[in-house]
């Protein structure tokens, strides 16, 4: 009945473990067929605060303070008011949650992301605010995050993780004192495999909570009369990987975007009581862009500083298409100058998971400047740079010829000419900038550049 040889016994034990992990084919098959029609109630009524939960809450309050203190929270009034209004409109009327005080804030980070703290603070990054198209998409993001808070996901996940960590530690202790012989070998195998199983269940549970937040989010959007199909559109937007950084790992705490699009479409199909007309969405888009235009410019500055040039070009072009003023043209020019010798889009190979992993390794080895230098040594890099510097120059010029020209376009041109080794032109542009912006924050920097260039020109 049972295998007698030690090796067989070990193999049997391994098979047993693998069969019951969430990674097993049985578990995966079960996941795929899980119903998407039913979602739990919006609030976890039965939740009672324990000591551990209070510690998590305290940490969340301190994180709020830290984010603000470190200058990571955007203080732009109109954008914050807008996010607050959309967020508040999603909260069920009269809902009072213990130890939750709703706050909606924008984080200065060019990477598209959003997160919620269990104390009711919901954060959306400037990168995500810039990526989305309209108010309904913002509502989709906020509804997802609100569900995490309302369903107490952070506390529930933390409690579950603690149990699993304890199990892992007990297993490690058992493994360390395993006797010899066949029994000892089995114990060793089981205790070696157990942490992987536990890790898989932790991530699996996290993915379940994300799925719950996605589906519940759709319900909330419908209740607040937002176009629910925009939840799917947000996922599609997030799937556009300009910088090649969405790497699929063996363990993922979120379901894959493909999977999310699939189950959300399925859920929406089952209860599609409203599909918004394109014209209505276009109107919403214009209103959205108008409200968050300053935020989008701020994000472009952050993206350029972080070397996210491909995203910057895409977003700046969108801004110029919406409103072609001097400042937006300037940001498009800056984006092209930053793009430098890089290709405007990643190739198919670069967008594969292994391509992204290779790029991540290279990023660790090379600084942005070194990457640029290496690219400029190639024919393709030289061609890209030539094309991008021409575009940059054209947009700087257009920014300066537009109504109310922004002086920073002179600085941009100066930097472009300096790179092109047109010293005299660079000095002329820098000097115009200094003349027009006597109290600029970067005055000293530009003055030093002028001095160095003049010295070189002698």
């Amino acid at each position: 009945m049972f295998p007698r040889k030690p090796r067989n016994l070990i193999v049997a034990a391994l098979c047993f473990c693998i069969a019951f992990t969430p990674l097993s084919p049985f578990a995966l098959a079960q996941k795929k067929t899980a119903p998407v029609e039913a979602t739990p109630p919006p609030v976890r009524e039965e939740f009672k605060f324990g000591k551990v939960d209070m510690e998590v809450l305290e940490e969340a309050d301190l994180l709020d303070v830290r984010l603000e203190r470190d200058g990571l929270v955007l203080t732009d009034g109109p954008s914050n008011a807008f996010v607050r209004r959309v967020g508040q409109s999603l909260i069920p009327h009269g809902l009072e949650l213990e130890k939750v005080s709703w706050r909606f804030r924008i984080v200065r980070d060019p990477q598209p992301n959003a997160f919620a703290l269990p104390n009711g603070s919901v954060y959306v990054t400037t990168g995500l605010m810039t990526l989305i198209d309209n108010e309904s998409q913002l509502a989709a993001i906020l509804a997802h995050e609100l569900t995490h808070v309302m369903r107490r996901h952070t506390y529930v996940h933390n409690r579950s993780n603690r149990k699993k960590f304890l199990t892992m530690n007990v297993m490690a202790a058992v493994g360390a004192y395993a006797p010899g012989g066949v029994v000892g070998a089995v114990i060793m195998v089981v205790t070696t495999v157990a942490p992987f199983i536990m890790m898989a269940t932790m991530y699996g549970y996290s993915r379940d909570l994300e799925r719950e937040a996605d589906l519940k989010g759709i319900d909330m959007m419908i209740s607040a009369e937002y176009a629910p199909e925009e939840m799917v559109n947000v996922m599609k937007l997030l799937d556009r990987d300009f910088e090649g950084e969405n790497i699929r790992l063996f363990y993922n705490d979120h379901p894959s975007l493909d999977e999310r699009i699939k189950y959300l479409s399925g859920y929406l199909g089952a209860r599609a009581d409203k599909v918004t007309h394109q014209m209505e969405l276009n109107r919403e888009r214009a209103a959205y862009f108008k409200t968050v235009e300053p935020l989008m410019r701020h994000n472009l500055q952050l993206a350029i500083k972080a070397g996210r040039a491909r995203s910057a070009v895409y977003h700046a072009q969108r801004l110029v298409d919406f409103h072609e003023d001097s400042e937006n043209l300037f940001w498009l020019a800056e984006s092209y100058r930053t793009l430098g010798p890089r290709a405007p889009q990643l190739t198919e190979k670069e967008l594969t998971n292994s391509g992204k992993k290779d790029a991540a390794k290279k990023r660790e080895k090379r600084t942005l400047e070194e990457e640029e230098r290496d690219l400029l040594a190639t024919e393709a890099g030289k061609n890209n740079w030539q094309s991008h510097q021409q575009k940059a120059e054209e947009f700087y010029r257009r920014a300066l010829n537009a109504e109310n020209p922004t002086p920073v376009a002179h600085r941009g041109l100066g930097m472009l000419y300096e790179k092109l080794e047109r010293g005299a032109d660079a000095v002329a542009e820098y000097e115009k900038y200094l003349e027009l912006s006597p109290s600029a924050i970067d005055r000293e920097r530009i003055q030093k550049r002028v001095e160095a260039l003049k010295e070189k020109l002698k």
Partner: protein
Amino acid sequence: MRARLFALVVVLLTVSGSHQVQAQFIHPKIKSNETTIRRVVVMPAKVTVVRDSMKGPEGMAAESDELSLRVEKMVAEVLANKKKVTTLPAPTPPAASADGDSEQKYNVADFQTKFDALLPNIMKKRSDVKKARFTMGDEVLNLNLDKGADAIIFIRGEGKKLTSGKTAFRMLVGGMPAYLRLMIGIVDARNGEVLLYTDPIFPGDPTTAIDRLRKALEKGFKKLPEVKG
């Protein structure tokens, strides 16, 4: 048995590591005395510690903030006492500008982010600091520091404190001890070049081991030339 032996090796390596001279990498300009660091500005430190318990890691946000301040002050103290380096005030303390000048607050935050972005490159090949490979660019001038500042100090750190349960568990089974590891970069205030990188590490409770912290910092800045005259 094998697991215990492995744990013992890990512990020995960590402990012995703390008694070795800390890794320090100095820019050739400092080595050749072409540049002397006399006055520095210490940017707000970012040190994070977690409490490792049998039930997994737990955040220690309040203790981390306290430790960050302590490290910041101690770096200034060690540099003053051992190297005669003067510390100048940091650009607009973030707390003071909470509802004031957003632009300056953002500026400081963006420089901290820029250092965070450069740090993995430095850590990947720390010895390249000696080849003058790393720079934060002339954007450092936008910080508009005191004109006398020669360098800016960026401090990052990570540490782990063990609960009593986890300490007992570690004795029985093995595992990483409590520790604090700092990553400190000194950047030229005029052109952004990374002049020194050091990453002292020491075992022990990071929230209470004040003497060990001081000693680790003293060792960490050992190669930095003392200001003469």
